[in-house]
């Protein structure tokens, strides 16, 4: 009887062994992923319908975008390290790695601000651009802006996680859920980088 009650209690607190907090984060990731899928599918359709599209190698500095990708991928690796350290109970490493991830996120945002400023100075806005293809500016600012907002949110979450680690009230599950969100931000960038900047 006692073990049955324990099983029932565990089932109420988890979904197939996964805590409900983590399940909720996964549900968020799925719905948000579909939102980005919608944006990218719309972008693909519009690009085909537009007939011509600016040459990305002329518009963007690929080495700079690659550097942004490097920063984001590196921050994902530090976050994965933090999550594992959290599981091992090594909160000192968690603090260091979360801080490294946070710095990566801030660097990425700074680089994106620089990229936006450069393009705005070159005359790329939501309504117009030097190539007379308004949809280009629309999708560029919409997709990268929406992703950047996610990075900013991630930075706020990471700052909170870091402060909680300093105060000694951080749980390993808290690090894991923050990690899931951060990896999702990285995952979305993989698609944006390929579909918007390279293809």
């Amino acid at each position: 009887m006692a073990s049955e009650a324990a099983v029932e209690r565990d089932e109420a607190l988890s979904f197939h062994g996964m805590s409900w907090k983590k399940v909720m984060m996964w549900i968020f990731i799925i719905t948000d992923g579909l939102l980005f899928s919608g944006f990218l599918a719309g972008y693909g359709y519009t690009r085909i319908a537009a007939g011509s599209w600016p040459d990305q190698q002329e518009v963007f500095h690929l080495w700079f975008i690659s550097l942004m990708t490097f920063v984001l991928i590196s921050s994902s690796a530090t976050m994965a390290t933090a999550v594992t350290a959290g599981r091992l109970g090594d909160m000192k490493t968690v603090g260091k790695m979360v801080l490294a991830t946070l710095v990566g996120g801030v660097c990425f945002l700074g680089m994106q601000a620089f990229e936006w400023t450069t393009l705005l100075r070159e005359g790329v806005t939501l309504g117009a651009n030097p190539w007379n293809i308004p949809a280009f500016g629309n999708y560029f600012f919409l997709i990268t802006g929406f992703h950047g907002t996610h990075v900013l949110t991630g930075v706020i979450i990471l700052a909170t996680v870091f402060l909680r680690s300093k105060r000694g009230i951080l749980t390993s599950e808290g690090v894991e859920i923050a990690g899931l969100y951060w990896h999702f931000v990285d995952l979305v960038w993989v698609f944006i980088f390929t579909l918007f900047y390279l293809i």
Partner: protein
Amino acid sequence: MENVYKPFWKTWGILLTLTMVMVFVDVMDFPRFVLLVVLLGAMLTKAFLIGTEFMDLKHERFIVGFAIAGSILFFGGILFALITPDAFEVLAGGR
């Protein structure tokens, strides 16, 4: 770095290598078909690595991975099924 963290840095190295290959292929003016195959292949490989290694899906129960990957593929499939015919019509000069 302790051994337990090594897989993440190995994945990090693979992701960076794939990124460099993608940029190289893009800059080198390969035929469009080759470019698309390499870029889309590398993109999906990177997404798979992030999902399995960083998001730790490979250690979750099958039902959890199935629910996550299945729902994304199902709804993503519907999205593309609705858009693709229109896109091909545009490509063929239909409108």
